[in-house]
């Protein structure tokens, strides 16, 4: 009888599989569906030298940058919506400690999409005429070309294939087939572009329990999945829990205050606990 792989691992194993210096694509959006539990675990593991790609960066990336895990960020934007900016990211850019590579949202999503599909390169009109263009052209990440069909000016972008991706999903089966509810922003191509796709799931079920028509990320593409209920806190997960506004406000206040205050937040909520459950208890206190 044919068999299904079992891809369930602990969050610690999931994070431990990511070597220093890896290129990791993250898939949260501002204050929603961030893989916060995963970011905590990487910080506790002392992972460093990461290159992070996240189209619309949010709290997970700000945490990792604050935790000293990230040398380079590729993004199209970053914020915590109305709660504030990504202070660790912006500070890292201002001090030169963090290298920033910046695209338009569509351009970066298309690079991931081209990576997923194995396209030789992808084309767009976005970014033409903008100041986003010059540094990307200088870095060899964009070429200004003309369509071979009508001669129209356009941009060519190479495929992007991060080493890892991490997506916070609603339900996964044990083989890694995963359902994401609500808007998907760049989740599908982020998971598909990476060489190793990792998931953190609110719920895990047996193979056969999911409606295959509802699967957002096929297990065929997934390498491992960890079970972490409420693993997105304090960001929102659609249909499951709201963002924790009070926690987000206190995070932004600390982060905006300066490096020391931001680090004190990490000492208390990340390095001061050994599991995400401990963090959740502390955050609820």
């Amino acid at each position: 009888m044919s068999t299904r792989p079992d891809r369930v691992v602990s969050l610690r194993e999931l994070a431990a599989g990511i070597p220093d210096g890896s290129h990791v694509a993250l898939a949260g959006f501002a204050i929603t569906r961030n893989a916060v539990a995963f970011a905590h675990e990487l910080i506790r593991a002392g992972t460093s030298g990461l290159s992070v790609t996240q189209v619309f960066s949010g709290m997970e990336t700000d945490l990792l940058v604050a935790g000293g895990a990230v040398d380079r960020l590729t993004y199209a934007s970053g914020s915590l919506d109305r709660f504030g900016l990504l202070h660790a990211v912006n500070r890292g850019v201002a001090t030169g400690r963090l290298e920033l590579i910046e695209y338009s949202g569509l351009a970066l999503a298309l690079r991931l999409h081209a990576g997923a599909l194995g396209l030789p390169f992808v084309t767009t009109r976005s970014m033409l005429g903008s100041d986003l263009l010059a540094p990307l052209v200088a870095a060899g990440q964009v070429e200004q070309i003309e369509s071979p069909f009508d001669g129209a000016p356009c941009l060519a972008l190479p495929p992007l294939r991060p080493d890892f991706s991490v997506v916070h999903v609603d339900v996964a089966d044990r083989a890694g087939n995963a359902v994401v509810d609500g808007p998907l922003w760049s989740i599908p191509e982020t998971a598909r572009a990476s060489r190793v796709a990792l998931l953190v799931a609110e719920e895990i079920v047996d193979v056969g329990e999911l409606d295959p028509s509802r699967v957002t990320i096929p297990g065929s593409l997934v390498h491992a999945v960890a079970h972490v209920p409420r693993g997105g806190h304090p960001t929102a997960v659609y249909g499951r829990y709201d963002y924790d506004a009070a926690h987000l406000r206190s995070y932004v206040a600390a982060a905006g205050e300066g490096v020391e205050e931001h680090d004190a937040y990490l000492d208390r909520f990340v390095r001061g606990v050994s599991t995400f459950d401990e963090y959740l208890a502390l955050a609820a206190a």
Partner: protein
Amino acid sequence: MSADERWTGGEMLAVAGSLQVHDGDVAVVGLGLPQMAALLAQRTHAPAARLLLEIGVFEPMPTEPSAGIADPRMWRGATAFGTTLEVLGVMAHGGRVSLGLLGALQVDQWGSFNTTEVETDGRRRRFRGSGGGNDISSNAGRIVIVMTHQARKFAETLTFLTSPGRQVGGRSRADLGLPGEGTCAVVTDRCVIALDDHGATLESVHPGEHPDAVLADTPIPLAVPDGGPKETPAPTAAQLAFIRNELDPNGWYTG
């Protein structure tokens, strides 16, 4: 700040911004004041306007205030969820978006704008970056910018040109390879600036504002129509009631 004490500057801005939305527009809407303007339009003169959020949300009809486009409250009533590739790609880049309604840190006389960083006392401060803003302004039929009015937000040379307007460095959109007409209006809490391929015009000033004072605080080349700018229609009681009771009862955006 408002020149008329019957409403706040934010309320006036939301109302004036909403008037830029045509009934039937397919509009991609940015975080904050653009959200307010779009939702107000949808509930008043433009019931058939369809909103899209770059996060992958089609035609939401939210009924409570939200902390931004990543707040699930903003997605309520949506008829479909999808991806950024569908909203910025299929809809905007594919030529199906008639209007982009966006905020800006800084804008020039051709409606190009900056959402990336500002320079204060020689120090650059980074904000959000482009997100989908560049894609929307590069590909939508027309763009409306909605922002509070400060002199430092108007500049002939932007600190960072995140999103192209009607022309860049003397090159037209068509010459750059961009579709659409580009920015057609900049709406602030003091005035409405109209843009066409000849430049920017002070189309109207809000009730209580003096044109000369507005011009003095708008340091970009700005034409004034013969006879001076019009007065922007004042907010109606119905518009104000909707803003205060439903759209932004906490005054997060319009307070």
